[in-house]
């Protein structure tokens, strides 16, 4: 008998905070709103820490807690039940920890914004749904969280809803996510149909004995692929990544919390959670790996040309998520989750630091108008430096360890291939290049913004200024985590996660690649010299990216212009994000809009539904128009009608009689 951990309190606490601020926040002062907004996620974080300390005593197996029955129909059961194993513990700590830090930061960032209570209410609501997602013990409850974070994301992207671009970015995010959710739902239906349950325990124990699916009905493969469709939507992978860059319309803490650290990683978590299914569907795993690899490279290449500081980070997020899927796709789930964790630290930090930069220069997001900020905002500069080094994969920062582990897995895993590794290294180089480009453009050289902002009263009243302490403290904590977060070591991390992710042990892979003898030699590599050699190459790639960025954006800032001119067509294409948005607009948006407008709106709604109602009303009106003249109020005309009626009856009777 294990002691109760009161796990249900962890998600419910932020929900209470959201309810208080959402219902009564309008009447509170800003101070009380902030206190409520911090207290509940803070309490959730404290509880999560307590749970983490209790956890080793439960090591025997996952901890389960049923709060209340929910749906019980026949043999199908889905309860409000929570499930804690090593995987959800990591997610729990990341979500509550990073989430709480970002809440603290938001208090400073949103200090001069209106509608603060609305913002914090949504933010707490997001925490509730995200924690439900990671703690759920069945797919249905997970789906509730999954949809809920989408809702919170929609609300927060469109927080400045009077801005047209923000409102439509919110809609875009929501609609694109719906496409993914559709795949997720179909996968759930398939699971119910064939296994009669959505409960993790029940589901995985019935799938576990099955062997990897090489041919046959392809049931597990289709379930896995449909789950991947859902993950693609939520985690912004090709082809559903288009919503994430637009989502940068939201306030920066939102970008940090939802669109970098937590929500977008839900797809990775879901794939890792469903690893039992994916392990038995090698074809689906290959698809995951290919999607992840392509996304990593593709998004990174767009990141090079973006000039909006948040857009660069958005594409960087997509690219890093691609890495995580690459890891999952070669069955290196723990590497993916490890990167998820370090990414939450350094990408959350990057966004918060970018927010601090934007805050400092009065709302400007264009990097071409920044520069030379190093000495003016030193705290932001140093924390951002830590994050930049971490994401570029420079040892000993956190990103190095996780990225290196992913690349090693991509190379050495039975599912892996040197192609993944090569693209991964190229992406690492591009990542390092665009991150240092951002770094040099923002902090070095001369200030290129409008000069008067530093003298005359700017929107904030006092020129370029360092952010308040309440914003800097989370930055510093995250910077420390970005530096030290990787020192756990990927091997220890993998060992820690093993109970949650181990059931794939004992299954041999027969990937198509494995049948080619020349590649099977890579399969039995000892993690020794080769690993060291490969890490050396990826560090070199990162260093080269740094050098190139230094050369182009610090040493000779006129060069990028000339290169852009020389590569005119390619540069244009990349600058315009390969015209993917335009392509989608032609392929999907326009047909749907036209079809809806012409067929559904004008055709069916106006001509059939409205017309039938309108015409029957019109008909009734015309008939009554004709008849109402009988009701003249004139007694003698009534008498006349009565007489005429009587006469008609008599004529009829007579006619009947003489016939």
């Amino acid at each position: 008998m294990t002691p109760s951990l009161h796990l249900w309190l962890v998600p419910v606490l932020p929900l209470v905070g959201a309810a208080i601020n959402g219902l009564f926040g309008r009447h509170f002062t800003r101070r009380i709103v902030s206190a409520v907004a911090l207290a509940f996620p803070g309490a959730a974080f404290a509880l999560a820490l307590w749970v983490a300390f209790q956890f080793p005593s439960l090591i025997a197996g996952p901890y389960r807690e049923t709060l209340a029955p929910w749906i019980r129909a026949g043999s199908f059961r889905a309860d409000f039940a929570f499930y804690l194993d090593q995987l959800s513990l990591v997610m729990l700590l990341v979500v509550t920890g990073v989430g709480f830090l970002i809440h603290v930061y938001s208090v400073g960032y949103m200090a001069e914004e209106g509608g603060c209570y609305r913002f914090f209410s949504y933010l707490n609501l997001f925490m509730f749904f995200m924690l439900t997602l990671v703690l759920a013990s069945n797919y249905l409850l997970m789906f509730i969280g999954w949809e809920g974070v989408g809702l919170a994301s929609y609300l927060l992207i469109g927080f400045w809803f009077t801005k047209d671009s923000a409102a439509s970015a919110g809609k875009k995010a929501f609609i694109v996510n719906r496409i993914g959710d559709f795949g997720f739902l179909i996968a759930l239906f398939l699971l119910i149909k064939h296994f009669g349950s959505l409960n993790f325990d029940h589901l995985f124990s019935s799938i576990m004995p099955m062997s990897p699916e090489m041919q046959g009905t392809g049931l597990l493969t289709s379930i896995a692929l449909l789950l991947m469709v859902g993950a693609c939507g939520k985690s912004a992978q090709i082809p559903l990544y288009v919503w994430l860059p637009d989502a940068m319309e939201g306030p920066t803490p939102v970008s940090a919390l939802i669109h970098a650290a937590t929500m977008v990683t839900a797809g990775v978590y879901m794939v890792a959670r469903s690893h039992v299914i994916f392990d038995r569907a090698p074809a689906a795993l290959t698809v995951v790996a290919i999607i992840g690899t392509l996304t990593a490279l593709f998004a990174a290449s767009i990141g090079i040309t973006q000039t909006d500081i948040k857009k660069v980070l958005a594409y960087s997020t997509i690219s890093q998520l691609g890495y995580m899927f690459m890891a999952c796709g070669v069955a290196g789930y723990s590497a993916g989750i490890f990167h998820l964790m370090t990414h939450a630290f350094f990408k959350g930090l990057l966004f918060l630091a970018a927010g601090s930069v934007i805050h400092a220069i009065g709302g400007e997001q264009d990097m071409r108008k920044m520069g030379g900020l190093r000495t003016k905002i030193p705290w932001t500069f140093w924390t951002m430096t830590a994050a930049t080094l971490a994401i570029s994969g420079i040892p000993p920062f956190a990103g190095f360890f996780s990225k290196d582990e992913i690349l090693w897995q991509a190379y050495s895993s039975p599912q892996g291939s040197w192609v993944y590794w090569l693209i991964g290294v190229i992406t690492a180089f591009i990542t390092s290049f665009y991150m240092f480009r951002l770094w040099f453009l923002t902090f070095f050289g001369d200030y290129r913004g409008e000069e008067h902002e530093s003298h005359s009263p700017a929107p904030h009243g006092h020129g370029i200024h360092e952010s308040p302490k309440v914003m800097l403290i989370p930055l510093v904590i995250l910077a420390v985590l970005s530096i030290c977060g990787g020192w756990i070591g990927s091997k220890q991390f993998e060992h820690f996660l093993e109970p949650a992710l181990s059931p794939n042990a004992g299954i041999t892979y027969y990937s198509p690649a494995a049948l080619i003898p020349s590649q099977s030699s890579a399969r039995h590599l000892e993690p020794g010299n080769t690993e060291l050699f490969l890490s050396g190459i990826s560090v070199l790639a990162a260093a080269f990216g740094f050098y190139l960025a230094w050369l182009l954006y610090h040493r000779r800032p006129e060069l990028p212009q000339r290169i852009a001119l020389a590569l005119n067509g390619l540069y244009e294409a990349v600058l315009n994000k390969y015209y993917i948005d335009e392509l989608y607009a032609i392929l999907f948006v326009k047909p749907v809009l036209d079809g809806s407008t012409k067929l559904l709106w004008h055709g069916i709604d106006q001509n059939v539904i409205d017309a039938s109602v309108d015409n029957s009303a019109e008909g009734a009106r015309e008939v009554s128009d004709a008849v109402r003249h009988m009701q003249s109020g004139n007694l003698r005309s009534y008498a006349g009608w009565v007489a005429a009626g009587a006469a008609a009856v008599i004529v009829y009777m007579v006619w009947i009689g003489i016939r």
Partner: protein
Amino acid sequence: MVPLSYYLVLSGILFACGVTGFLIKRNIISIFLSIELMLNGVNLSFVAFAAQWKALSGQVFVFFVMVVAAAEAAVGLAIIIAVYRTRETLNVDQVNLLKL
């Protein structure tokens, strides 16, 4: 013995007079009288048939009709007085509040 058809023709003439008066008269009292005329036309045919067929039910029915007519006269005249008090006219063409 006067044949039945005579009574019936007289009854029909009375009824027709009533209907005509009902339709063409504007004074509400005249209309009222026309209604009484129609009732009496019907009464006449009732008693004629009753005498012809030696059946009492026709005679009894006439009493019913008379009672109803008396009650109707009482109520109707009361209404007429009330109408006259408010509208100061007995012309039905001017009492047309029932129209749409």
